[in-house]
């Protein structure tokens, strides 16, 4: 079947259009999409959710479901038209010549089958090799994806592996038959940052080793920069700009690409001096696209009668290698003009201490035998000796990956759990032992929370207005129903939502709008401390900036203390005044933003900084890749919590790392690091992120 002599492009998509048919109407998902992937090339497909990037991938796989149909154009794989292939021919190609890796690793593996069997199936079905040979191949590939103890891996079930290991197995499965084209659909979105960095590195290395072409789908520009050779930016079903990474990142020729880069926090952005520029307006719904340029209504360079006159075609940008843009005015726009719209604001000075924790500990006891409650109890140390203070109108970022104890801390602070020991002082009043039912209304309304998942934060069967009014009722704001309604409308004004939204149901709102309602609800009782648990991580890039700015603006006006929980260091650097890095329940580093982002680092901070992809070609990063996964909090390593993954462990004499929990070392005023490394070693660290001189 396999044609080894083929030398042309691996994948050629020409003027592809895909539509989904619902009972009401035809919904065009992809329109006039063209791209070419050469052998060994990695193509990045970038765009916000709903822009059609995954639909392109499914179109290539010819797996559009019952509603979807290719309505125009052609997809050629190694010169053969996929559109006209029979089901049998497609089956032959899928999984052997084109392999796909999906976002959720657990959903791509069969939970009832051993890993080895699933891997061996691939060559046995496609090439009819013997079981023995297939096993040998599986062993080889599992070794290639750098999994420890490959034989044990092959013999285990998917649920016995961690998320990162599962995704490596999925990658291994895709590589089993040495495909010519690998489609990766947001392969690392479900993983933690440090694990993501390792998987991305792996994909890159394997691509080079096997010479596989890749179609890499992501919403993260930084990731695409690190993995791909070429990029294609999509907006609302159309490719708006395509070209090599350098061309698109440094000499973008489409207003959407430019707006996208201005709305993400790159090094150098600052919440006061150089705030982000959010893209105005909302992503158009597929059946409500404007005539002419889809980006027109949100574009700064929009020209009526011209941009909305008719269909716009891809135009080549002269001088660059295969660089095209779908903009009529790209020759007229001054692309190097400085950002005009940004308004610098005064930096607010933090006030007095509002919140103070002292040696806060939260342990959970887990019975070993759930049935009778007898036997040994295991202790999960979710928070270990947390000490810090937060001031009025200050932003304290809490950074860490899943399982680091940041959510537990939020629960204790909110009163959903009580502390095991230590103290939490709110205005010098101890609250650590008062569960929420016993707190007075004022304490409860003083500490509020903004949740992570916008699709989960609002009750789907209550109108937006009702939900905010319920918060007002509970906090005892307003004496009559009318007064509360008036206040609710003012809150909608505060978060810049139209007042009509009061009567809408949450499902009629977009993710960013829901998150705004969540913010309005949190501020209903005049909250003084707001815990924002990754408030923007689930939102699209262009919406993130707007929501972040909103939070900052309210904070400035209300003098709120913001505890910003996040794993995204780019946004933390942009908006935090101080940063606290957590790992397995321990605070490993705390300091002002500048101190944490510059050496000396805690080794974990260093790895975290290196792991976060930055969408800037001028940034040079030191590569620090952590091996292994985050240990379980049920069974933490002895001594320093980070010792199992630490790259600096060899620099500490003796086995202190394995036996002794390090003390907090103060390196500078307000900057503390929990590490055994000597002062000299810490001072010798090099900065992870360096911006190349222009």
């Amino acid at each position: 079947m396999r044609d080894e002599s083929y030398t042309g492009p691996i994948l050629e998509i020409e003027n592809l259009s895909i539509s989904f048919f619902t009972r009401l109407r035809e919904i065009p998902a992809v329109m006039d999409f063209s791209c070419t992937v050469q052998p060994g090339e990695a193509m990045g497909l970038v765009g916000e959710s709903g822009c059609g990037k995954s639909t392109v991938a499914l179109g290539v796989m010819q797996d559009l479901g019952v509603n979807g149909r290719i309505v125009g154009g052609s997809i050629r794989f190694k010169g053969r038209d996929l559109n006209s292939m029979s089901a049998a021919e497609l089956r032959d190609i899928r999984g052997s010549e084109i392999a796909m890796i999906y976002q959720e690793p657990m959903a791509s593996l069969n939970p009832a089958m051993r890993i080895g069997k699933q891997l061996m199936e691939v060559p046995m079905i496609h090439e009819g090799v013997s079981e023995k040979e297939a096993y040998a191949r599986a062993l080889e590939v599992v070794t290639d994806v750098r999994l420890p103890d490959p034989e044990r891996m092959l013999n285990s079930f998917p649920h016995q592996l961690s998320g990162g290991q599962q995704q490596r197995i999925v990658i291994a499965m895709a590589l089993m038959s040495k495909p010519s084209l690998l489609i990766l659909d947001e392969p690392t979105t479900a993983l933690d940052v440090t694990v993501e960095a390792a998987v991305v590195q792996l994909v890159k290395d394997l691509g080079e080793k096997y010479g596989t072409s890749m179609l890499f789908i992501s919403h993260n520009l930084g990731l695409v920069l690190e993995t791909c050779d070429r990029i294609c930016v999509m907006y609302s079903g159309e490719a708006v700009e395509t070209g090599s990474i350098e061309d698109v990142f440094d000499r973008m020729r489409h207003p959407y690409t430019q707006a996208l880069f201005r709305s993400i926090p790159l090094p150098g952005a600052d919440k006061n001096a150089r705030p982000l520029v959010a893209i105005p307006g909302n992503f158009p719904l597929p059946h409500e696209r404007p005539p002419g340029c889809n980006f027109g209504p949100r574009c700064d360079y929009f020209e009526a009668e011209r941009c909305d006159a008719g269909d716009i075609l891809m135009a080549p940008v002269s001088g660059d290698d295969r660089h095209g843009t779908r903009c009529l005015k790209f020759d007229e726009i001054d692309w190097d003009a400085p950002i005009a719209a940004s308004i610098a604001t005064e930096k607010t000075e933090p006030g007095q201490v509002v919140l103070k924790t002292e040696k806060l500990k939260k342990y959970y006891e887990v019975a070993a035998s759930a049935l009778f409650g007898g036997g040994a109890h295991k202790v999960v140390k979710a928070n270990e000796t947390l000490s810090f203070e937060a001031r009025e109108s200050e932003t304290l970022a809490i950074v860490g990956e899943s399982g680091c104890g940041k959510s537990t801390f939020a629960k204790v602070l909110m009163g959903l759990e009580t502390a095991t020991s230590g103290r939490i002082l709110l205005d010098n009043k101890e609250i650590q032992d008062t569960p929420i039912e016993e707190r007075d209304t004022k304490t409860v309304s003083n500490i509020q929370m903004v949740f992570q998942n916008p699709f989960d934060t609002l009750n789907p069967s209550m109108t937006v207005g009702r939900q905010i009014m319920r918060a007002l009722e509970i906090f005892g704001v307003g004496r009559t129903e009318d007064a509360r309604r008036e206040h609710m409308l003012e809150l909608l004004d505060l978060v810049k939502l139209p007042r009509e939204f009061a009567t809408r149901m949450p499902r009629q709102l977009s993710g960013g709008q829901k998150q705004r309602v969540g913010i309005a609800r949190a501020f209903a009782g005049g909250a003084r401390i707001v815990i924002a648990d990754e408030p923007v991580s689930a939102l699209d890039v262009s919406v993130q900036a707007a929501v972040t700015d909103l939070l900052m603006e309210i904070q400035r006006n209300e003098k709120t203390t913001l505890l910003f929980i996040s794993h995204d260091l780019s946004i933390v650097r942009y908006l935090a005044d101080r940063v606290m890095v957590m790992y397995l329940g321990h605070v490993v580093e705390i300091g002002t933003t500048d101190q944490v982002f510059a050496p000396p680092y805690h080794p974990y901070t260093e790895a975290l900084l290196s792991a976060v992809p930055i969408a800037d070609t001028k940034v040079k990063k030191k590569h620090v890749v952590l091996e292994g996964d985050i240990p379980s909090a049920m069974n933490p390593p002895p001594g320093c919590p980070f010792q199992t993954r630490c790259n600096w462990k060899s620099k500490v004499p003796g086995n202190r790392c394995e036996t002794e929990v390090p003390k907090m070392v103060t390196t500078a005023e307000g900057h503390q690091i929990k590490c055994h490394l000597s002062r000299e070693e810490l001072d010798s660290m090099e900065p992870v992120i360096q911006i190349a001189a222009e």
Partner: protein
Amino acid sequence: MENLTWTGSLGPLLNPLFLLAWAAFAVAVLAQILLSFVSGNPQMQGNALAMRKSPADWAGLAARAMFGLIVLVTLGYLVGGLLLPGPEAKGIIGTISTRLLPVWISLAVLFALSITFKRRLGLYGKLFDSTIGMVGFGIVMFWVFTAFYADMIATHDPLTQLSGMKNKVPGTAISGADDGVFGYYLLGGDNLARDVFSRMILGAWEVIKIAPFATVFAFMVGITLGVPAGYYAGTLDTILSFLANLILAFPVILLFYLLVTPEIVDTGLPTYMAMVLFIFPLIFGTVLLNSRYHTQPKFRNGIVAAFLAVGGLLYLSLISSNDPNAMIRILPGWLDLFDVPGNILVVFVSVVFVNSPTVFRIVRGIVLDIRTRDYVAAAQTRGEGAWYVMLWEILPNARGPLIVDFCLRIGYTTILLGTLGFFGLGLSPESPDWGTTINDGRRLLSIYPHPALAPALSLMSLVLGLNLLADGLREESLRD
């Protein structure tokens, strides 16, 4: 007067067509199955216009056309029966169709209105996008309207026996009928010479009156216990789940027999069980209102008091009885709004008792899932009470699966009522309800099948309708 034929004067015209359509339909379906083995896979890729029809496709098309013809002819019987004058010309089907005229009109109005405004009616409106859902809803509403207009539709009193009509076949004319008495037994007579058609129609009323109410009570009990079990989990959940399992494990039929045994009834056990089971809606409503309005004490006091006054009166009317021998006589006679006959109370109790554990388990499962959502956490972090979170944040979002299960469960309850009637339990032996009637007709089934067949088909069609409705609702609630 002559006996009626099934199809009257339409027969000679439509009957051959009807038979022919059925025969052709059977052949076409068979051909489609056979041909699909022979012909290869049709090419579905690329342009839809290029699709070639294989012989199997043609056979499928023919089958569909024949099915359409069958439906059309059936409609012809019904509409023709409406239009033709006189029972002889109408035939049995035509006459029944004429008797059911109020039902047809109501159905037409309901469907016309619903389809016109379906985009504004939420989930109910979406039901009209699914054929299965519409068919199910049509069948269910047919029986609901039939029950509602039962007195208008029925031709005779369900208990009157007319001499000479014992076990007569459908369409038999009543010899020497008085003026003002309908002259035919449309679906024949049973072994006590009563009219099968009228008993079937009035039986619908018996079923429709009990099944949904019994199901509502079962849901009330299941929800009131299931939501806290799922929300708190832990010990409460373990105890309640164990009890639910215990009831589920107990043989249902034995339980029914026990409940209706006179000795047990004399001890007052069913009445006391009714007292306990029927108080759940009252508790549920009070907690619901209190948790919502406790921030405004004045308003809360008013609304909860009003609810308790109305609900309490209904509750007391339900359990207390004017019968001097009754166990519970709390209300004075002038305040007692209605009396529920003891045997119906027993039916209610047994239906609620066996259905609520299943509802409990469903509710508990959904709540276990929903309580991990962020909006539940948001409610907790603003200091809401547990019952508010359970009843206002969690329960409304569990409604989808519950509505579907409610429809299915009415179906089970209907069958359960039939079963109870069949065993002679619960309802009185003369009651025209379908279960009892099937049991009556069973004895002479091999000689005279029609007295048992009519209620059996009715029961089947109602339960089928409910199941189709549930399917349609499930399908539509998943779509957006």
